[in-house]
C-alpha cells in the first residue's frame, strides 16, 4: 500500500468523523455556549426524532428498498395519536399503541405491495405516501388537533395527557426521553443489522436477492419484515413528534423524508461502511444537528444553513460512491 493509498483510506474511513470533530472544536472555541452539557442535550434532542426515523430508513435501504412514505407515516401517526386522545378521550398508552400499530400496518402494506403485488418499491411507497398524507387529514377535515377543538360540532372531550407529553418533553436524570430512545434504538438497530442473523439476512437480500433466494432465504418475507420495521420506527418518531409539539399538526412529518434520507446517506460514509448502517445513520443525524445548532449560534441565516447542509451531503456521497475512494473490495 502506497502512502497515497493509505491517506485515501484514512480519509475514506475517518474523514467524516474528523470533520465532525473539527466542527465541534471550532464551534466550541468560538461560541462559549456551544460546548456546554446543556447544549449537547439540546443538539441531541433536536436530532433525536430524525435519527429514530432515519434508523427505519436504514433498514429499508439495507434490503435494497426505499421507503418514500416515511414522512407521511410520521404525519399520520401524529394525527392518530392526537385524535385518539383529544377526539375520543383515550388514555395515552392506548394512543401510543394505536400509533405504533398504524406505522407497522402501513409498513406491512408497503411490504405487501412490493413483494406480493410486485410494484417497484419507489412507486409503491410513492403511492402510499400520497394515500397516508391524505389520510392524515381526513379525520380532522384538514385541521390541526388541539384540546378544545370542535369535533362533530361539539368541543372535543379529551386532551393530550401529561404522560403522553412526557414522551416528547420529559427527561430521565436530565436526559430528554427522545434522546434516550434514540440511543437505545440506535444500539439495537446497529447490533441487529451488523451482528445478528436477521441483520445478515437483510443485508444478503439487499446485496443479491437472487443469491439469497438460492441459498434458501425467504426473500419476500425478509423484505416485508424490513418495511414493517421501517414503518414502526417511523411511527415511534411520529409519537415523539406529537408529544413534543403537544398537538396534532397537519403534515408535521413531511420534512422527515428528506431529512432522514440525508442522515442515512451521510451515514454510508462513516467508518468507510459504504452501506446503510445504524451507527452511521445516528452520526449523520447528529452531524446535521451540530451544524444547524452551531451555525444558528453564529447567526448564520437559514438559507446558508440549507446550502451548507447540502454541501455536507454531497461531500459524504462523494466519499461513499466516488471511484477515487473505492478500493477493490470483495
Amino acid at each position, binding site marked *: 500500500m502506497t502512502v497515497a493509498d493509505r491517506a485515501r483510506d484514512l480519509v475514506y474511513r475517518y474523514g467524516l468523523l474528523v470533520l465532525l470533530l473539527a466542527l465541534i472544536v471550532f464551534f466550541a472555541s468560538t461560541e462559549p455556549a456551544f460546548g456546554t452539557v446543556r447544549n449537547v442535550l439540546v443538539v441531541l434532542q433536536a436530532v433525536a426524532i430524525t435519527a429514530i426515523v432515519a434508523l427505519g430508513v436504514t433498514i429499508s435501504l439495507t434490503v*435494497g428498498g426505499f421507503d418514500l412514505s416515511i414522512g407521511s407515516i410520521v404525519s399520520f401517526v401524529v394525527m392518530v395519536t392526537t385524535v385518539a386522545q383529544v377526539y375520543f378521550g383515550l388514555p395515552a398508552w392506548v394512543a401510543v399503541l394505536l400509533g405504533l400499530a398504524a406505522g407497522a400496518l402501513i409498513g406491512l402494506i408497503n411490504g405487501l405491495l412490493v413483494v406480493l403485488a410486485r410494484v417497484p418499491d419507489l412507486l409503491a411507497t410513492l403511492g402510499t405516501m400520497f394515500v397516508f398524507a391524505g389520510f392524515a387529514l381526513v379525520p380532522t377535515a384538514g385541521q390541526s388537533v*388541539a384540546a378544545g*377543538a370542535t369535533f362533530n360540532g361539539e368541543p372535543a372531550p379529551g386532551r393530550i395527557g401529561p404522560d403522553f407529553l412526557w414522551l416528547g418533553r420529559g427527561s430521565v436524570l436530565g436526559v430528554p426521553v427522545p434522546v434516550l430512545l434514540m440511543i437505545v434504538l440506535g444500539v439495537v438497530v446497529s447490533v441487529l443489522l451488523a451482528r445478528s442473523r436477521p441483520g445478515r439476512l437483510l443485508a444478503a437480500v*439487499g446485496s443479491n436477492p437472487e443469491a439469497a433466494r438460492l441459498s434458501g432465504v425467504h426473500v419476500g418475507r425478509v423484505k416485508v419484515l424490513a418495511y414493517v420495521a421501517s414503518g414502526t420506527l417511523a411511527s415511534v418518531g411520529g409519537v415523539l413528534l406529537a408529544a413534543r409539539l403537544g398537538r396534532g399538526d397537519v403534515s408535521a412529518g413531511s420534512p422527515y423524508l*428528506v431529512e432522514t434520507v440525508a442522515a442515512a446517506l451521510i451515514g454510508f460514509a462513516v467508518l468507510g461502511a*459504504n452501506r446503510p448502517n445504524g451507527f452511521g445513520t445516528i452520526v449523520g443525524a447528529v452531524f446535521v*444537528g451540530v451544524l444547524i445548532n452551531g451555525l444558528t449560534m453564529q*447567526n448564520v441565516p437559514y438559507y446558508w444553513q440549507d446550502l451548507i447542509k447540502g454541501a455536507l451531503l454531497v461531500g459524504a456521497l462523494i466519499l461513499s*460512491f466516488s471511484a477515487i475512494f473505492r478500493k477493490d473490495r470483495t
Partner: protein
Amino acid sequence: MTARSLLPLAAAAAASALLLSGCASSPAASGAGNDDSVDIALVRQLGSGDYFELWLAGAEAEAERLGVNLSVYNANGDDAQQALDLESAINEGVDAIAVDHGFTETVQPGVTAALDADIPVVAFDVDAGDDRAITIAQSDSDLASLVLDELVADTDGEAQVIYAYVAGFAPLDRRNAVWEDVKAENPDLEQVAQIGVVNESTASEVANQAKAALQANPDVTAIFAPYDEFAKGATLAVQELGLEDSVRIYGADISTADIEVITADSSPWVATAATDPSNVGAVTVRAAYLAATDADLEQAIEVPPTLLTQDALREAGVSTVEELSGAFPELSTPDVAPVD
C-alpha cells in the same frame, strides 16, 4: 448498490415536489344555480390548514346569509392550477370573483381577463396586479405595532431581543418594516440574533434554532416572533430550557392550538395580535357581493387587527378561535364592507 442508491434520492426530490404540487382541484359548488341570486367564485391558492378552514367557514356562512351561490376552487398550493381555476371561473360566468392568496405573476392574467369581461374581482392578501381589482388585507403593520407596543411597554424599551423572520413572505415583510422602525426609535432594544425557517415543520425547527440562540445569548429577555408558528416554536424552546421566568414572547396571529399554548400555565407567550379568519372570509364575500351588485366600495379594504394579551385571553376563558369573537367583539368587523 452504488447506482441504485442514488436513484432513490432523485426520486425522493421528485416526490416531494409532487407532494407539494398536490392534485388538480375542482370547484365545489355550494348551491344550485339560480338566475336571480348572485354567483361568486372563490379562487384559493391554499385550502388546508386551520386558518384556511376557518376562513372558508366564515366565507360560506356569510354567503348563505346573503343568499350568494359560492363556488370554491382550491388549488392546493399549485399556482398554475390557480391560474386555470381563474379561467374556469370566468367561463362559468359568475357575477364576481374573489381571489384568496396567490402570486401576482400567476393571478394577474386571469384577473385582468375577468375585469375585461366586466366581472369584478376582489383580492384577499394578494396583489392582483390590476388597479381595477379591489384589494382586501389584514393590516399587518397595525398588527405588528399592537404587539410591539406591548413589547416596548413591558421592557421599557431596553432589552436583548431574538427576532424570528424569513424574508419573502409579504405579511412577514410588512411586519418586519414595523420592527425596523421600532428598533430605530428604541436604540436600547438590541436584536442579538435572528432566526427563522418556513416549511411543513416550522414550529419544531424554529424551536431548535431558538434554543441555540437562547444558549448563545443568555441575557435575552424577549423574543419577537410575528407569525404564530414562529411563536409556538419559540415557546417550546423557552419551556424546554426552563426560561419561562426570564423570557417573554411576543407573537402574531391566532388559532385554537395557539390559544391553548398562550393560556397554559407559565406560558412565556404573553401577547399576540390577529384578525379573526372567519371574519376576514366574511368580509371578502361581502366585498365580492357588493362589487357584483355595483354597490359603493373602497378600492383598498383593510381589516383592523385586535391585540390579544395572555391576561385577557385567560380572563375571557376562551379555548377556541370560534369563541374568540364572543369575548373580543372588536374581532368582528361588520362595518368593513357592510351589507345589511
